[in-house]
């Protein structure tokens, strides 16, 4: 990727001596190419969407299906956020599927069998997830057992405990408020319309916020003398994103409105995006994954960071378990089967590096969406689950191979 960033800049340097007019043009081009390089994964998502829109005769982009895409993949995306953080730090978590199942079962005990208020059941369940993280984080960070082993054990332990809690039976029918987590929509708050006004309103606010944020960042960078992209390209990108948000909002508004899952996700992406990009904790995660020794010798408390990373993963796995349980309205023994693999795939397709140190929340989300679109598109086309598996595996392999190829070409490690 960095190849795309640097090469055009080199050519502009040469161009500067030859022709100033061409220079301006190549400079713009270099920014566009550089962005394409950085956003290769985003372009891949668009290509997959376009491909399946054609293959499914447009069914993929129907409002109802778009809404479904979010709701069906919400829990994978939640897991992908935590997973990419773990992977950036150079670890892995194989237990998230089992933890999701375990917490789903526990929440059934809280909300159904004990009849606790739904909110208390949710809070307690999330707490149980965090405690699972404390358990695993302790072994990984303080005892020094590789995360692969600890979470492989966790995968068995918590799957087993889930079955113990369920006692060979499904637990079901959950309170409505609980179920909203997986199935609910914010709709008809302002009465019934063909296009839900709340959805459109939120989209409008999101767009305004985006503009304000982007302009402020740009201004701040300029004030610090940092290089910024050409104004034209900056505006073009903003307009493109605005159109995308608008179309997406229109699709949701013409169906049932904003899914509750989407709101949860949006909050998570926002919060964790800030954590990873702007907070010291996030910086420490990147530093640990990039060079553990250097991080340690820079005074970073690497064990603590690792510990809290796994506590966080436990919390997010619990949240994913709740969303999944709410969606099915059932806590069952097969819940969460294979979640860990989808979450790990999402992180790697989204550009995370196997050795750690590299990866982004946004990348993992897009990686998760690519998997989601593949699942959804192939299902619409009537392709069997067996072929879906094979295709997804191939996509994962190719995505990482592309990444490795790119890095080698740019002379990185």
């Amino acid at each position, binding site marked *: 990727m*960095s190849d795309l960033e640097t090469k055009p*800049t080199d050519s502009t340097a040469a161009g500067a001596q030859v022709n100033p007019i061409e220079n301006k043009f190549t400079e713009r081009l270099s920014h566009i190419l550089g962005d394409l390089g950085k956003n290769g994964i985003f372009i891949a998502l668009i290509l997959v969407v376009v491909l399946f829109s054609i293959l499914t005769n447009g069914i993929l982009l129907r409002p109802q299906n778009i809404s479904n895409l979010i709701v069906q993949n919400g829990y994978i995306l939640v897991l992908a956020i935590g997973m990419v953080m773990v992977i950036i730090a150079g670890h892995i978590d194989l237990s998230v599927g089992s933890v999701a199942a375990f917490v789903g079962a526990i929440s059934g005990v809280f909300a159904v069998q004990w009849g606790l208020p739904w909110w208390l059941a949710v809070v307690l369940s999330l707490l149980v997830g965090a405690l699972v993280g404390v358990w695993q984080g302790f072994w990984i960070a303080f005892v020094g057992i590789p995360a692969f082993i600890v979470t492989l054990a966790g995968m068995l332990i918590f799957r087993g405990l889930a079955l113990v809690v369920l006692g060979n039976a499904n637990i079901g029918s959950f309170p409505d408020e609980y179920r909203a987590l997986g199935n609910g929509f914010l709709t008809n708050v302002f009465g019934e319309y063909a296009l839900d006004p709340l959805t459109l309103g939120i989209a409008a606010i999101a767009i305004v916020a985006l503009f304000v944020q982007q302009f402020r960042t740009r201004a*701040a*960078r300029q*004030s*610090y*003398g*940092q*290089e910024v992209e050409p104004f034209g390209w900056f505006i073009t990108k903003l307009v493109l994103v605005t159109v995308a948000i608008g179309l997406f909002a229109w699709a949701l508004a013409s169906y049932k409105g904003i899914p509750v899952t989407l709101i949860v996700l949006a909050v998570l992406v926002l919060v964790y995006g*800030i954590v990873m990009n*702007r*907070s*010291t*904790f996030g*910086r*420490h995660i*990147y*530093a640990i994954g*990039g*060079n553990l*020794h*250097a*991080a*340690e*010798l*820079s*005074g*970073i*408390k690497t064990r603590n960071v690792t510990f809290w990373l796994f506590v966080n993963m436990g919390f997010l796995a619990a949240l994913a378990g709740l969303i999944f349980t709410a969606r099915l309205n059932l806590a069952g023994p097969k819940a969460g089967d294979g979640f860990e693999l989808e979450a790990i795939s999402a992180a790697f397709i989204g550009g995370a*590096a196997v050795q750690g*140190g*590299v990866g982004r929340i946004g990348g993992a989300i897009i990686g998760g969406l690519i998997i989601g679109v593949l699942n959804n598109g192939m299902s619409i086309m009537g392709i069997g689950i067996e072929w879906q598996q094979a295709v997804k595996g191939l996509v994962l392999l190719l995505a990482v191979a592309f990444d490795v190829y790119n890095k080698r070409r740019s*002379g*990185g*490690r």
Partner: protein
Amino acid sequence: MTDDIQARTNILEMRGITKTFPGVKALQNVTVDVRRGEVHAICGENGAGKSTLMKVLSGVYPFGTYDGDIVFEDEVMEFRDIRDSEAKGIVIIHQELALSPYLSIAENIFLNNEQKGAFGLIDWNKTNHEAAKLLARVGLRENPTTKIMDIGVGKQQLVEIAKALSKRVKLLILDEPTAALNDEDSDHLLNLILHLKEQGITSIIISHKLNEIKKVADSVTIIRDGKTIETIAKNDVTEERIIKDMVGRDLEHRYPDHTPHIGEEVLRVEEWTAHHPQDPSRVMVDAVNLNVRRGEIVGIAGLMGAGRTEFAMSLFGRSYGSKISGRVFIDGKEVKTRTVSEAIEAGLAYATEDRKTYGLNLIDDIKRNISMAALGKLERFGIVDDGKEYQVANEYRKSMNIKAPSVLAKTGKLSGGNQQKVVLSKWIYSDPEVLILDEPTRGIDVGAKYEIYSIINKLAAAGKGIIVISSELPELLGICDRIYALSEGRITGELPIAEASPESLLKLMTMEKPR
């Protein structure tokens, strides 16, 4: 084998070897002749080019990447890799032993040269039997099935030699073979080299331990700054002559002027002791006492294995060693340095000798590497101020003259000198009272070295206390105000710069523990 005619012929002639790396001329027209059946020592300071020369000889740097000829047994060699040179009977034993710890002695000896029996399967009886014979030749009394991890470094060294013998070695190259050995093991090894000589095996031994050279070498070639200075025959070898050859360069102009303004004591270390992390019975740092005053540049001189880095890292948040004891005072107040963050808090900074492994996050940019040790100064409520970080990094890029298109460049793509400037920026930004710089100019070309020295001077002028650890004596003599000598983990002496000379320092650095 040692009749007169053969004794006079050269088994190896390296003629006019020149090897350049981007920006550095590592070897310049180096010529070495090694007679058949002799032990030939190659002497020189760290960075003089000894290891590079041996890598050229053994094919690590293949034919075509250097200028000049390697003539071995009257034939010009064109080695493509190390296997080519081994096929001719040239075997190099590196300082870092290349043995697999979980395999047995016999398996290691015959690695990639397996003793095969029927159907091409490994014949274990033959393997162990042959290994036992080789072990007898090197005088190692161990069962061939013992795992490498269960024997000490000295014995591992012997296994390496046994391995070389199994390859029908004609020319054995030993790179600092006794650096990690105790006296007994060293003696045994040196005797073995003499014993092998009787069997007709020629050896090249790289060393800067003068007593050991005097004991085994028939002739000594001294290399300095990538050039051969001279070859001395056994009878003419004196310590004084070797030291003079090793260090006798123009010390002017290589180091910026430095007028010390020395203030109050800023760091005092009392009775600092650390043991080996895996083997707590070995004392690596032995009751070290030292102090540094504000504005003072203090050197620590010591040979490889003297415990320089071990001292610095154990002091810096106990990053090395076990059973660490001793007291640390900053500005007269005792401070705790049990973790790295405590050490930083107390006002210490440690720039490592190995930038790539311990100093930098190579896949991240300059900006984030500089802020890594002091993110606290850039954050509010746990959120890092991006813009300010950029500004800070950019200021360092300019003031330290880090040559990079912007602070967003990845540190992995910078040259050694610029990487070192990033490391220094990181520690300067953490605003320490005392900076410990471990080999601050290792792997850096001459121009950048000068810049690094200037930075060190500026820091001292700003009232910081500086400790410079270096294996290059001229460097210490060129920049320090006072030098401690370290040997076997102990401070064996302390010389103000006016009294320090390479000779006086080397004497202290090689001073052995009374036994």
